């Protein structure tokens, strides 16, 4: 019985049907399926398939994003049922594109990869001012502030955000990660970021690594 419902959940997750994922997750919990099995066999298996199919051009960004939403739904329902040792939530991330920059595909891809890998994501969109980053991070109690920029004229706001955190005595509260077309590891390190990743996939490893460290305690770059 549990195999059957997990298979249905996997398919609903693959198809990005968030409402159906919610219903099936509730049903699986009611039937006594272990919360970790729901996450692993209902969610992660589907997301792994999607990741492989994305690289082979069988599915595209919209399907990944819908699956990201569906995974968020699954995690919201399952989380209260997890024991301390089972807790798979990796951390809370606020993500946006820096002021003056309206590009969103790279940022959305990173947000999706993080969401499907167990991070709680707050995507605050494009053209985000430093004040907005700081204000939302405070309101939402995030662990990581992720700033994207494809434009060289917007990348300065990454430095501005880190400087503001230092000036306001909040640098120790948040990890700050940066990425986007013109951003390279030396720049990220020079401005005092905690981390950089060249790819959306690498950003998952980066955030997992950072969650083991204190903010501002050393730079991590995933440049593969």
């Amino acid at each position: 019985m549990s195999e059957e419902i997990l298979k249905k959940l996997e398919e609903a997750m693959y198809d990005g049907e968030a409402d159906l994922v919610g219903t099936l997750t509730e049903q699986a919990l009611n039937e006594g399926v272990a919360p970790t099995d729901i996450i692993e066999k209902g969610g992660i298996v589907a997301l792994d398939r999607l990741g492989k199919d994305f690289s082979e051009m069988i599915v595209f960004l919209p399907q990944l994003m819908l699956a990201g939403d569906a995974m968020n739904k699954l995690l919201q329902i399952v989380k209260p049922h997890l024991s301390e040792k089972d807790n798979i939530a990796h951390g809370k991330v606020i993500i946006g594109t820096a002021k003056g920059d309206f590009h969103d595909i790279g940022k959305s891809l990173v947000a999706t990869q993080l969401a499907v890998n167990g991070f709680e994501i707050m995507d605050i969109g494009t053209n985000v001012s430093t004040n907005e980053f700081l204000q939302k991070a405070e309101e939402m109690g995030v662990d990581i502030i992720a700033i994207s920029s494809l434009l060289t004229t917007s990348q300065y706001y990454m430095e501005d955000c880190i400087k503001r955190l230092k000036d306001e005595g909040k640098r120790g509260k948040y990890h700050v990660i940066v990425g986007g077309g013109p951003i390279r590891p030396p720049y990220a390190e020079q401005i005092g970021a905690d981390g950089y990743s060249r790819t959306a996939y690498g950003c998952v490893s980066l955030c997992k690594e950072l969650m083991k460290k204190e903010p501002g305690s050393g730079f991590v770059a995933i440049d593969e």
Partner: protein
Amino acid sequence: MDAHKKILRTLDKTRTSPRVTEKEWDQMIVPRTAAEVVKAHGLTKTCNPDNPVNTDGELADKFFKAGWDLALRLGFFCPDTESVIKIDEEELSREFAKAPDSFTVGKHNEVVTVKARRPSDGHVPVYVAPLSIQMNEELYVPLVEGIVSSRLVDMQEGPSLDTIMGRPLLADTPYETFAGIYEYHLRKEAQWRAGRVGMASALVSSSSTHFGFLGAFHLYDQPQIALCLNPASLKVNFTTLHKCFVANELNAFIRSESPTMIGGYTGGPEATAICSIATDLLQYPITGAHLPGSPSYDIRYAGNCGRHGIWTQSIATQAITRNSTVLQMKTINQVAGPFTKMFFLETISGMTAAAASGQTFTISPRSAGGSVKNHLTPLECWYNAAVFKGAAGLSLEKANEIVKEVIPQFEGELNNPPKGKSFQELYDIKTVTPCEEYVKFYLEMREYAKSLGIPMPGDGVFC
């Protein structure tokens, strides 16, 4: 006033059109509609990565019809008002019919006519260099002087400045306004040093918002090409419309585009191609563009010289160039950097396909994917120009044969390309002279292109 009225109509529609959220537009409306149109026109799985340059004219015509259909079904999304600017068939037909088939820019010895081409057209296309790659401000003048010292380069667009008089160039601030003005003075100096006074430009490249444009575009002798880029494919925002009003008042020629991403919101290669065509068609009634050209990049490596990128660009270009006499441009996005073999092979692949497919105009290079500061030199520009112009008269079959020979040599590295070397590493900046090793390599790569069957026009400096 007609041009202004067109932009006013667009602006009116942003206030009165139906509202949708950007998320709905990106994740639901665009992908679903594009997929429906691909299916309805029988285009599913027509992408053939084994033959990256399309040679089937009837297929290109079907893509044109599908792109037209999609344009009418979608329209453009305006992120500022979260509204959809719809265009009806009468408006689209009327504005498309009025679109120019040529225009002339430049003064003195630098007059250039941009003229529509068809696939395999022997008429030589126009080459513009470079794209807006970020450079240290002290390198701007020597780099541009070097680039435009070859007459293979018809006009100038980039590069973009890193700083302005040592200060950060912050988006959305008066620093950008000044950047436009500062770039005007540097550009003038560089073109004068190279003996290219009167050369036309595509402007303003150092400022992405409207500030630099509003501050500086009027300083240039007109007409010039106005960069009124869209925030994304199938979208237009107020920043673009600010620029369009000014460009129209100065009788400039509007270049408007934004890339479609293969694997992104638009979906696979077929759906991305029709989104690219629709984006180009809708520019006429919405922004009044003279030179639209939505390129397509592969989201997996943010370039377009691999198989899917070449195929998507070739079918979308041919769809337009076989079915109209409008001007067509698309950029070629290399991901490898200067003084790497991969960069030159990507260039052969992208530029051969572009020229043979009938592109009127291109701007390049995007060495190192445009993401590594100072990784751009004149030699990459000249090589791009020589291949683009040399491949103009090639048949689509010959272009496909060349691309098939070249792509296997670099496609394994698309996800992790070599970044190459910087301008300072490869050139003596004071004399604007490349190092001997790079000149030797450049000349070898020219010979290689010739051996493939591309007649390579000389650069006037080394050959």
